[in-house]
């Protein structure tokens, strides 16, 4: 059993997934991925990752709802959630408060940003 920290990435863009997986694996994290919101919630509950990177616009269930479902469940609400969004129009800073997420990253992000934020929450 490895003691590596596990990060769940939920994003429907395969190319973005691929770059994020590469980066985080290099940094020593174990990665699990989901390409839609519903699978995201299921995987989060099954695998109990240490952190979730969550895109806002997702098929089947959007990121806000994924976050809300996890944050309203005592078993999972402690898992830090970082939103990823390409939209600067939807006042993400207010949304993370509303849905109880820990942080957000705006796409496109700077190379260090992703790792720095992940490290900030799970080391």
């Amino acid at each position, binding site marked *: 059993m490895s003691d590596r920290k596990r990060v769940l990435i939920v994003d429907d*863009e395969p*190319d*973005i997934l*691929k*770059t*994020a997986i*590469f*980066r985080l694996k*290099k940094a020593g994290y174990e990665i699990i991925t989901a390409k839609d919101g519903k699978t995201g919630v299921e995987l989060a509950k099954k695998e109990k990752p240490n952190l979730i990177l969550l895109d806002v616009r997702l098929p089947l269930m959007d990121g806000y709802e994924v976050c809300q479902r996890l944050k309203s469940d005592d078993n999972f609400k402690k898992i830090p959630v970082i939103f990823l969004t*390409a*939209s*600067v*129009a939807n*006042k993400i800073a207010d949304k993370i408060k509303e849905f109880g997420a820990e942080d957000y990253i705006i*796409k*496109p*992000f700077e*190379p260090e940003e992703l790792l720095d934020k992940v490290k900030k929450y799970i080391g």
Partner: protein
Amino acid sequence: MKILVIEDNPDHALLTKRVLEKANQGYQVNSAREAEEGLRMIIEESYDLVICDYRLPGLSALDVLKKMSEKRQDLPFVVVTSSGSEKIAVELMKEGAYDYVVKDSSYEDALPIVIQRAIDRYNVKKEKERLEKELRESNEKLKEMYEIKSSFTSMVSHELRTPLTAIKEGIAIMLDGSAGEINADQKEFLDIAKRNVDRLKRLIDDVLDFSKLESKKMVFKMQKGDIMQTIKEVVAVQKPVAEERNLYLKAELDGSISKIEFDSDRMNQVLNNLVSNAIKFTKIGGVAISVSEDREENTVVVCVKDTGKGIKKDDLPKLFQKFQQLGGPNQRKTGGTGLGLSISKEIIEQHGGKIWVESQYGKGSEFKFILPIKKRYKVLVIDDDKGVLDICETFLKNNGYIVLRSESGMEGLKAIQSNMPDLIVVDMRLNDISGYDVIDRLRSSNGTFARPILVMSGYADEIAKIENRKEELSLPWISKPFNNDEFLSKVESLLMNWA
């Protein structure tokens, strides 16, 4: 044309009918002997004009007009009065009469003229209403188009950002060597790719910012703060860029600048824009940012001064327009959207400030902007009740207002003359002259008195009176007792609208 004559005196009705026949306009005349009957006829039949006696048994002409306006009936309406009282005339016109005619020896000659005048007025009014409606509709349409445009822009921006994320990350991963060693040539070309992806990102940000600013949708997080802090941040970011080009970048900061309200992220954006422009157009020397306070104008002045080539006089007016880049289309080598300065201008203006440039070609440029230091408004409260004065004073002082108080109307008038307050809060019932008297004297003695007045009253019937006079005097009111929030929101909105 169908005319209705409402007249209780049969002799007068006959006279009016005769005058109308004599006019020889082919009028079709019906008559009613009392107001109720007349009203029913107006509503049930369609008339082109009503001639109504002022004094009728039961309802008066005024009541008829009121009832008509309740039923949204608008017709050329002429009132026949026995006296030429201005007061009655004004009252009638206010209720929707189009003209009036006095029942005297000139009645026969005057009536046709008055009828024509009423019809003309009615037509002008209808035409005005039609035009206003058209204008409203086309404004609505424009607003809708604007909405579509701005939501389109933000949608496009979102769509562009997603692929850009993958490109940017792909390049970054290769560049940092984590996907394997790269050689010098590969690095050079990846650097080129990275630079241009970053440029593309900036362009998308600019376009989106601009569209948000243009539709006034940008939300400003206004906070009281020290603009010098923001300047220091910008200098820290831009200093390496300047030094790379052998230029200096320095901040000349005066230690005593008042705190002002601004959105620090947006101000950072403006300063970065000005400083990076200055660096871009400077070959020798450098850039200096200074900040000072203009105590007379109550503003903070920020200046970004460079020793670059300066701007030609002809180019100065174009500078803050959108999509403008100096040097013409063949020299777009600076790599922007040409939106930077117009975005800065919008941001500064939505902060209540102003931005401009002073430049001499060949000698460098100075970009300056001013931001307002929040004014401390002076408010005079007039009330003979010391308790009310105390409460108002507490509410106002706690919120940064300067408070003057007067315990009588005469004292208040004196205080207004000597202190020129920005806002007057006056109670209706005072122990010497009434609140109305204060206002009337103020307006008549000094035609230019245009500062806002807030009327207080604790009595329902007085409030009704204020409401009736609201139109002519434009008097906003507040009823006692009120709480802090009610009072301050009135005060603030009055001052805001006035400024």
